[in-house]
């Protein structure tokens, strides 16, 4: 459980090399600089998707991650623009605020199961959008634009993080930042799932009654998991806002919440790295289909439907083979 096999280690090594060295090289060679933005988006969206996946791990279908991403984006933007905080402090603050909201909302709604929970979380995204429209601090429909780029951080005079505004290539810097955040997120998720909390989550996913009969405080763990999940959402959203340098009530909508869910389902719910793969395939696929103009959505949704029709247990189920993991 605490030991990583050589094969796994190699896999991780190859993966890290690919995203930190391989991708910049390829992009440099092909001149497709726009891929940086695409891949940065994939990294950030997969952080939020990781949260959705985690809620599924306790048996709840979460279609409300857009709400927490939006909350995170606004909290960070407000802290940076109105309170003059450094982005790097506003980032965890955004995560924690999203987690706090998740705890408050989670106490009543986590009692709901199945379709009910799915529906109420879907509604939640709409609530946050409307709240952003209604509150004065979020500037209503105008949203918040011209958010300054992350400033540099130095500790005892030693620069730790560079000033993004003074950089020639912010795309690359954001790409690296997003990738590091994504790796930290998935490393944490992997540890969590393979630790005792993960086992308790699995027991709850399979049978809440039995879990409580062996002494698992299911209400407490549900809240903890939902808070962690929303923390991921908040972080992803805040980083996104910083890259776009703007946040609007429409930055994360119901359709985004649905997409987060799709990322997880498509990657496969039985696999920690499923949401990462799902996000990559869906977002990148969507981006590649841009060339087809007005047929983009039609092709995208057709492929999506076909995948669900013929691979109902997710893309990673191909690797394991049918029925390998239920």
């Amino acid at each position, binding site marked *: 459980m605490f030991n990583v096999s050589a094969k796994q280690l190699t896999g991780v090594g190859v993966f890290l090399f690919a995203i930190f060295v391989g991708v910049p090289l390829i992009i440099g060679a092909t001149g497709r600089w726009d891929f940086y933005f695409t891949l940065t988006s994939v990294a950030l969206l997969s952080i939020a998707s990781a949260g959705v996946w985690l809620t599924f791990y306790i048996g709840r279908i979460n279609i409300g991650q857009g709400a927490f991403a939006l909350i995170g984006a606004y909290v960070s933007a407000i802290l940076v623009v109105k309170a003059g905080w450094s982005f790097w402090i506003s980032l965890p603050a955004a995560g924690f605020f999203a987690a706090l909201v998740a705890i408050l909302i989670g106490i009543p709604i986590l009692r709901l199961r199945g379709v009910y929970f799915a529906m109420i979380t879907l509604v939640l995204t709409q609530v946050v959008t409307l709240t952003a429209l209604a509150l004065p601090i979020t500037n209503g429909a105008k949203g918040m634009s011209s958010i300054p780029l992350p400033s540099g951080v130095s500790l005892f005079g030693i620069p730790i993080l560079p000033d993004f505004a003074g950089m020639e290539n912010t795309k690359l810097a954001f790409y690296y930042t997003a990738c590091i955040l994504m790796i930290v997120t998935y490393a944490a998720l992997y*540890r969590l799932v393979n630790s005792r*909390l993960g086992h308790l989550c*699995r*027991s709850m996913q399979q*049978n809440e*009654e039995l879990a409580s009969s*062996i*002494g698992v405080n299911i209400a407490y763990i549900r809240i903890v998991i939902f808070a962690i999940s929303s923390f991921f959402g908040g972080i992803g959203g805040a980083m996104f806002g910083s890259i776009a340098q703007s946040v609007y009530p429409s930055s994360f909508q119901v359709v985004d919440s649905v997409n987060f869910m799709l990322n997880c389902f498509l990657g496969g719910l039985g696999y920690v790295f499923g949401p990462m793969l799902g996000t990559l395939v869906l977002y990148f696929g969507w981006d590649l289909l841009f060339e087809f103009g007005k047929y983009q959505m039609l092709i995208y949704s057709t492929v999506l439907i076909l995948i669900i029709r013929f691979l109902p247990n997710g893309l990673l189920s191909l690797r394991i083979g049918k029925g390998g993991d239920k």
Partner: protein
Amino acid sequence: MSPLIQVKNVTKKYGGLTANNDISFDVAENEILSVIGPNGAGKSTLFKMISSFTPTTSGEVLYQGERISNLKPHIVARKGVVRTFQETTIFKSMTVRESVVVAQHLRAKASLAGYFWGSKTAKEDVTAFGEYADELLEFLGMSEISGEQATNLPQGSLRALGIAIGLATDPKVLLLDEPFAGMNHDETMRMVDLVRSVRDERGVTVMLVEHDMPAVMNISDRIVVLNFGEKIAQGTPSEIQNNEKVIEAYLGSADDEIGM
């Protein structure tokens, strides 16, 4: 010696329906006590109230003098009163061993954060859980199926798995909900021996709800009989067998249920 569990004037009403009416009895330490009664007598409801899976309408259940009714199920489990389930309620996609390891949740010494970071205590816990799981499965005669997925098990093994999960929590009192249901004679006899050894070798007090009369008569130290939500008798198996009210209750419901 004061009783381990005291059921005091427990009543449960669902709307206008009374499932249990003013039921009182005691369970002594190291006893095997069965609750029997015709279908719909309120046995399962009574169990749910003892394990706090459902609140009482009035009355209370004490464990070592402390109230355990109207709490949360996990708190009652933590105190040492653990139930198993009537239906095949299991962790479907876990193996037998995984289920038993997870069920040792309450024995953990390290915190959740300790597990996340992989602290020393956590590592010790993991080793200890594994060893205890193997020991327990051997005790229950389930070593051979420890790697099986729970969904693939036959019904008899599923019941045993339910008991294994319950035992893994290190309970003082185990509440077994129809442990013999759907079993043939041989399976039942094996299960009877198993339940008895749980009491004899592990020092666990056992309460069970059951239909199977011969098994109940065989296994129980004492029996409580419910009918239409009321307690109509209690005593040793031989007392119960000769109790007119009990015979009447069973004859009045369905002949095939007596089986004695």
